[in-house]
């Protein structure tokens, strides 16, 4: 009998049963999709971005479809970190998967206060969101210069005793530079990419479709950009990378791994197919078996560039 390929991966000291993760914002706190499949099927769940206080989010419309993707401007609607820890985390912890808490805020002080709470909680890793394009203060502003990105990473690092992931914005001139800066400042791992800033206009009303005018583009449309950026960052830093951006099928996950990601997150594809992460994992297993690859980690960064 052929042994099943090894699927487990290690992200900053935390073992994930497999490299398929759900991306922050697409998966709530896990309850909705948890009604359709066991969350233990997933390597990890990344929860909706958490802020210190409850946030109402942006006015609607908040979403719009685009060619091969979608725009969103949710605006970090969430119940606040304390309510999450009280009402959502105990349930999520019981589902048998790794939990990544995505944290956001307006000021460095906000981020640190959220980190202080979560670092003593049952979450397994923290993901610092310095790339949300949908809030007026903070968010993406922290992620677009090396100085700001390193500054907030170092500040949060002082409060964070759990592995710290920093989620990078693609809305920058050189993502590898930012990656290097946040790793120097103490990031244990990187997530990339967040959404690309986009816009759609209703030609009848001559107004943007999104109430916030602009929003974050995700879905298959952004995948080649994400793959390119994962590759660029892999060439620059050694830390684990969670690759994301338009992954909708197992082939896309393999691409991400070959480009240098150690794990792969699925976001917008959930809206097309609720079972997308489970199907991607299954397809990945079959690919490994077909190709006689004993360990999924053998794919990481295994792309051979053309000379």
């Amino acid at each position, binding site marked *: 009998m052929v042994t099943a390929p090894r699927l487990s991966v290690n992200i900053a000291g935390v073992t994930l049963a497999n490299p398929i993760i759900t991306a922050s914002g697409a998966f709530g706190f896990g309850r909705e999709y948890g009604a359709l499949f066991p969350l233990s099927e997933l390597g990890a769940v990344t929860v*909706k971005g958490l802020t210190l206080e409850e946030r109402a*989010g942006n006015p609607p419309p908040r979403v719009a479809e*685009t060619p091969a993707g979608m725009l969103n401007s949710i605006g970090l609607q969430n119940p606040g970190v304390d309510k999450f820890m009280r009402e959502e985390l105990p349930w999520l912890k019981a589902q048998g998967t790794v939990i990544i808490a995505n944290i956001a805020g307006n000021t460095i002080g906000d981020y640190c206060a959220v980190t202080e709470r979560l670092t003593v909680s049952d979450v397994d890793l923290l993901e610092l969101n310095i790339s949300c394009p949908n809030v007026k203060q903070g968010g993406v502003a922290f992620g677009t210069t090396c100085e700001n990105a390193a500054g907030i990473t170092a500040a949060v690092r002082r409060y964070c005793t759990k592995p710290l992931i920093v989620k990078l914005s693609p809305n920058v001139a050189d993502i590898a530079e930012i990656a290097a800066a946040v790793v120097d400042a103490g990031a244990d791992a990187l997530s990339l990419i967040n959404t690309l800033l986009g816009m759609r206009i209703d030609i009848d009303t001559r107004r943007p479709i999104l109430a916030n005018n602009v929003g974050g583009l995700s879905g298959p449309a952004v995948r080649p950009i994400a793959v390119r950026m994962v590759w660029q960052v892999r060439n620059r830093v050694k830390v684990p990378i969670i690759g994301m951006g338009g992954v909708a099928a197992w082939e896309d996950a393999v691409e991400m791994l070959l480009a240098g990601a150690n794990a792969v997150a699925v976001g917008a594809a959930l809206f097309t197919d609720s079972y997308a992460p489970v199907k991607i994992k299954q397809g990945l297993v079959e690919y490994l078996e077909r190709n006689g690859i004993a360990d999924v980690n053998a794919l990481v960064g295994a792309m051979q560039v053309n000379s």
Partner: protein
Amino acid sequence: MSIVVTRCPVAKKVLPREGLVDLTLHCPEIARQAAPGQFVMVRCEGFTLRRPLSICDAQGDLLRVVFEIRGAGTAWLAGVEEGEALDILGPQGKGFELGDVTRPVVFTGGGIGIFPLLFACRPFRQQGTVLLGFRTAAMVALTDDFRETGADLRLATDDGTAGHHGMVTGLLTARLDERPCAAIFACGPRPMLRATAEEAMRRGIPCQVSMEQRMACGMGACLGCANKIRRPDGAETYAHVCVDGPVFDAREVVW
């Protein structure tokens, strides 16, 4: 009740008028647990987002959805033929709370908002008054289906080409002046819903409105389909059409 994702064959396809598609799906898993006012999310091949469609009717194993061709996604959906299968997620959302179906009630519907009212009005039979508003006579649809329920059906058109010349809310005022009404159920464009809600509140009649918003996940995870409501404590907040609605108590909606 639980949400399912299932592939269901199209049992019957009818085009009630140009631009309108009426699909009956063999879908026991959803049809048997569907409640009036709920909706399903239909996958359109090649599109990232599913299309939310209100459940027009559910009888036995059959689920009926009626939709207008609005863009490329619904155009694809309109091309699906009898015997082909659709990928459906549902039933989703909080539907109408019908209460005692022996009471006289009123349904107001506008344009493509009329469809979920068919399923909702059926149990009321002759006790239901159904007031439907359309832009013009050519847009009128499903009148035979509504009449078959036993309801008192009245039409209004903006241009007077069918029924009352004017808004459906004109019909509502007339009906409410005639005889008692225990509850109002409405679905249609936001201004129509607002006018209906205001008339209901003036007269102290309970009113439920079915609302829509651009939607992504359709299951409460992404928080895309925000709808501003007033909480019992008076604070304004965003609820979500997909799980807190699509039907809301008219008193809680912040117009």
